[in-house]
């Protein structure tokens, strides 16, 4: 029996090996790695893996960790159902409805 895989992202089943391979293929930013491998795009929205992925990237690129740019994280931070959203009575954005671009 071979050794089990090391999972970086459990939601989308992205292994450590896949992430490293994608880096070798030329994906060197967290944002493009996310789009290529799917890391951080699952149900948990990156709560279980984005920090780890960013740390790995800093090691792979041999750069200071503070230079790793985080991916876009848009609200909400967890999946909702349409029913939950439909029940939400959103307050009027005071006076300026329709002026949004």
């Amino acid at each position, binding site marked *: *029996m*071979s*050794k*089990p*895989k*090391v*999972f970086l992202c*459990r*939601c*989308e*089943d992205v*292994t*450590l*090996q*896949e992430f*490293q*391979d*994608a*880096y*070798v293929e030329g994906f060197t930013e967290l944002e493009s790695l996310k789009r290529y*491998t799917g890391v951080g795009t*699952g*149900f*948990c*929205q*990156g*709560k*279980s893996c*984005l*920090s*780890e992925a*960013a*740390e*790995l990237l*800093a*090691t*792979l690129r*041999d750069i200071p*960790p*503070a230079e*790793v740019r*985080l991916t876009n*994280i*848009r*609200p*909400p*931070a*967890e*999946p*909702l*159902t349409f*029913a*939950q*959203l*439909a*029940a*939400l*009575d*959103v*307050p009027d954005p005071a006076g300026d409805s329709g002026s949004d671009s």
Partner: protein
Amino acid sequence: MPSDKVRIRFEGNTLECRSGTSVAVALWENGIRHLSHSPKYGRPRGLTCARGHCTACLMRVDRIPNVRTCELPVREGMEVGRQDAGAFYAAPMQKILAAGSAFFPVGFYYKWFTRPPFLSRLFLDGIRPMTGVGRLPGGGSRFKALPPVSAPSGTVNTPASDLGRFDTVVVGAGPSGLKAAATADGRVLVLDDHELPGGQRHGVLRGLADQPDGHLDRFPVLKSSLERIEKAQNLMIARDDLTFLGGTRAIAGYHPDGLLLRRGDHLQTVQFDNLVWAAGALDTLGLFAGNDTPGILGPRALYRLLFRDGLRVRGLQALVIGDGPDFWLSAAALDAAGARLSLVPTGDGGAKEISAAVDLKWPLNTGLKLDEISERGEGHLTASFVQGTPSSGEAGTRLSLEADLAVICGRGKPAYDIPYQLGANLALQPDLGGFALPLPDDSGSGPATSLLPGGPRLVAVGEACGDLPGRHHPSGAEVKKP
């Protein structure tokens, strides 16, 4: 039937469960650890985060797919099933996949047959039905309309509300959040995804303090932690212009001053003039072979399962691996709940705590580095370790330990998503556990700096600003530099 029992249906069988537990815990206590299979490799997955974040416990409940079963209490007559049951992931297929894994290189599904287009289409048509979490019920064809599914009564029918504007909203009622709430200006709203204020460790710590055998007194690090929490609780209780919302979490931040909150299926909105982000940290299980094996938990998940669900661990063999206060709290809590322990401290441990553990006759295995955890059948884990210094390069002696569950206590990683959505700048700080928010400048007179440029004030306190620096994670897969 006594009223403290309920019966649920699981894939054709009737299971008897304690009432008041979550569906995932009820299944665990009935010997069912595999709640789902992973979307690509079909790996079994089980209870992991125990707080509704991850994919592992998503199941079909009363025909509704993707229900977080770690958060849903059991109800008489409930129908629960794995989303992939009977589909591609049946046991024989998993064996074939495991044996043939050498023929499937990493990422083959997006690398093979990309050209010509017709071949790519054929390939994708063939492979897509094999992945994912299974099909919705009610039809053989993928394109057949589904019968309407109505939501369980009383779930989404409650009117949603806007809580209005507060001078200060504190997200997280752990010791740091409570302390901030006690000193905050104006009308204060405090929310926490636990039902009671005190944070992730309080319930378990209080439970230990109430035990007659005085475990807590043996571990100074735990005793001081409980004192700190309860002091902060008293400070908060002393305020009467404060609202506490339990079982509620902030799930979205809208620039500049809006938060979306969720309690079960019920959403609420709130606006703030000041936001104190005290949401703490999340478990980090680490990167090692088999790190997705069902039965591996982080300390925060363990506290929730023991305190909220009363998870039965009596007689189970528990392996506790790691370092820091969570290592000792996990061990003490499991011991008090009747589990048999096997400890693998990976840091220096703390002299007083180590001698207390020896005194309690907890078996200690030192100098080990976690290498792999695998499963021999549902609920039986084998953890293998390498002895000696991992950096020396030579193959060390290996040691295997058997267990029913493994708790991995590494650094927590700061929760950062809502401040990031609101526009805060974050920096990756691996020695603090991940993307940590900057600590307030002056520790004495309360938070002073804002993380947001202009607009409302946002400050971060507590574990959201980073876990203890210098704490070592128990494991780490080799990262090869290309």
